[in-house]
């Protein structure tokens, strides 16, 4: 009887300890990353870009990947975008700390695919991926000295396979696709 009580106590303790971590791991990756960027760089995001992006037409890279007429890479209605414009993204020499924070924030559900850093120019690109049933969620974070973009989109495995051919360009291509003005 005493053993059972001890085991029950141990299980309860584990549930209490593991509780907050489980909540953190199952959080919304997109929102978690936006918050993390805001905290690290002391910046604020905008859901709608301040600068007009009318000039951003259907990009040739996306058209080249799909072949022929341009078609969106992301599934309809799946795109989430957060912009940070005209703000200061100075990592103060701690760019690898930021990289670690990014990985920790998305640990669990998301797998890191590509990460490129150029500390001198404060340029960073992160690409994470996770299963979404028959499709995939792709999270792209692009940071430059004065602006940043966080994009989450759902893509089909066929599109993902084509994008995988050049993972270094994948983030740029998906970000351009997500921010294209159709008008």
């Amino acid at each position, binding site marked *: 009887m005493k053993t059972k009580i001890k085991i029950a106590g141990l299980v309860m303790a584990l549930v209490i300890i593991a509780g907050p971590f489980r909540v953190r791991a199952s959080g919304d990756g997109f929102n978690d990353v936006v918050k993390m960027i805001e905290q690290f760089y002391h910046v604020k995001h905008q859901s709608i870009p301040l600068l007009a992006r009318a000039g951003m037409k259907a990009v040739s890279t996306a058209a080249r990947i799909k072949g022929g007429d341009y078609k969106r890479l992301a599934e309809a209605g799946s795109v989430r975008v957060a912009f940070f414009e005209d703000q200061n993204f100075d990592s103060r020499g701690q*760019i*690898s700390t930021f990289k670690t924070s990014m990985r920790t924030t998305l640990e669990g559900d998301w797998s890191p*695919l*590509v*990460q490129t*850093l*150029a500390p*001198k120019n404060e340029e960073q690109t992160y690409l994470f991926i996770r299963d979404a049933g028959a499709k995939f969620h792709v999270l792209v974070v692009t940071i430059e000295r004065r602006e940043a973009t966080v994009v989450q989109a759902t893509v089909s495995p066929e599109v993902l396979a084509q994008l*995988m051919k050049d993972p*270094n360009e994948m983030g740029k291509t998906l970000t351009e696709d997500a921010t294209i003005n159709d008008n």
Partner: protein
Amino acid sequence: MKQLFQTTWKLAPVLMLLLVGSAIGARAQGAKLQMDQLDFLANKASETVDVKLDERLMQTTAKFFSGKDSDDAEIKAVLKGIKGIYVKSFTFEKEGEYSQVEVDSVMSQLRGSTWSKILTVKSRKDGDNVEVYLNMTGDQIGGLAVLSIEPKEFTIVNIVGPIDLEKLTKLEGQFGVPDLGIEKDKTKKQ
């Protein structure tokens, strides 16, 4: 004591499964190099590229390359059986920004019995600066590692699965594998 013995006996099959599972896992991980210890170099490097294409992702996407398109058919054949592609590349502005300690942290893993240096490959740019290592378990190729060590650049490519030099050259410039300047006809055996 009797209760403890009974509990242990009941758990024995589970423990056995765990042991067998971890042994299989350890063998599968044999060709995968540990490279995360190099991450701190990102603070010194002028440019860092880190690519991780794991087994799940490789297998999921490989089947979506159509056999009808000739380019895709070739990619499909090259990727067959590949369990992962891992790349870390650091470019520095000045020489001496990384040390032999960092190089050794990777090289020491390649000194194991399953790894052998098969080729020193001539770079189109700077001569003998790319080394290729092959991981073999019996007559099975477990993976491949390429180290490009230059004064201002340090690149490691680790491919897990059945891969040879010919497949590697086909992957150059694709799937995160940088253009290593490998010329098959100019390679020499060590």
